[in-house]
């Protein structure tokens, strides 16, 4: 299989910059200057590259990445819904707009084992709180949802975030 890939949106210097930032931004007064020095780039160029990647959505944001569990959000429910394929776009937009939903995606079914095609992640400080939110989603979807389930996470087995292979 030989598919034509679109040109990469980042060049070699961008990738070096991304790799240098994967573990986080230096916690020093001039973090972008510190990165620039490490990489042998001009600070202005480093910042221009970051601004461009933010504008292009390659970097979603720069800021705090909370550890839900340590912050008291110990109930982490992946809610999954079986919605007719022709209704899933409207349903997904409505569910994604709820303030307590952090991610909302359509994914493929794996029948007969897995009939669900709409995924919405709900975080709460307790399972009661998540259940109340699941009930809100159920009410919003009404008869558009034929079945649903909530999969609570019981343990984090790994969490490293995206890493580019060397």
């Amino acid at each position, binding site marked *: 299989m030989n598919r034509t*890939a*679109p040109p*990469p*949106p*980042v060049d070699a210097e961008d990738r070096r910059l991304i790799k240098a930032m*994967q573990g*986080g931004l230096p*916690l020093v*007064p*001039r*973090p*972008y200057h510190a990165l620039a020095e490490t990489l042998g780039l001009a*600070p202005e160029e480093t*910042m221009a590259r*970051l601004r461009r990647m933010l504008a292009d*959505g*390659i*970097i*979603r944001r*720069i*800021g*705090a*990445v*909370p*550890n839900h569990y*340590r*912050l008291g959000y110990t109930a*982490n429910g*992946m809610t999954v819904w079986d919605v007719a394929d022709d209704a899933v*776009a409207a349903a*997904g*937009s409505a*569910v994604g*707009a709820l303030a307590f939903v*952090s*991610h*909302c*995606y*359509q*994914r*493929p079914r*794996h029948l007969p*084992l*897995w009939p669900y095609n709409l995924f919405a992640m709900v*975080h709460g400080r307790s399972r009661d709180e998540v259940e109340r939110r699941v009930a809100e989603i159920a009410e919003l979807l009404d008869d558009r949802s034929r079945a649903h389930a909530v*999969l*609570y*996470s*019981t*343990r*984090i*087995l*790994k*969490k*490293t*975030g*995206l*890493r*580019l*292979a060397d």
Partner: protein
Amino acid sequence: MDDIDRRIVNALQDPDAFPVSERPYAEAARALGLEEADLIARLRRMCADGLLSRFGPLFDAERLGGAVTLAAMSVPEDRFEVVADLVNAHPEVAHNYARDHPLNMWFVVAAADPERVRPVLDAIAQETGLSVHDMPKLEEFYIGLRLAV
């Protein structure tokens, strides 16, 4: 974690709260009514204590030209730890969660080279002898993890 820490975590999840500038911590601190050195010290402590996974950029793997998928497996309880180690040994596995469902292991595979995702799933199936259910994103309706603390 005190009230100032909470204000910092709440504010600095906002996409526009932290600038690209010569003194970004100073600017973010000013908006929060803090000193630059205090903000840096508090972020350092919250990272060291594990309240923050990290402070820095969140990348979009797909816009980077890479690929991401979510995969699920039904793992027999008596083999759970062994299988978790086999899955986690792959550097492309970014997150892995145990969940209470017959499909009890859910992990995200992210690779800078989109052609790498399928071989990683195949290798995990081979190494564990278990079916790996690939559930790639077909449509994204919302992503904006933001926790009020």
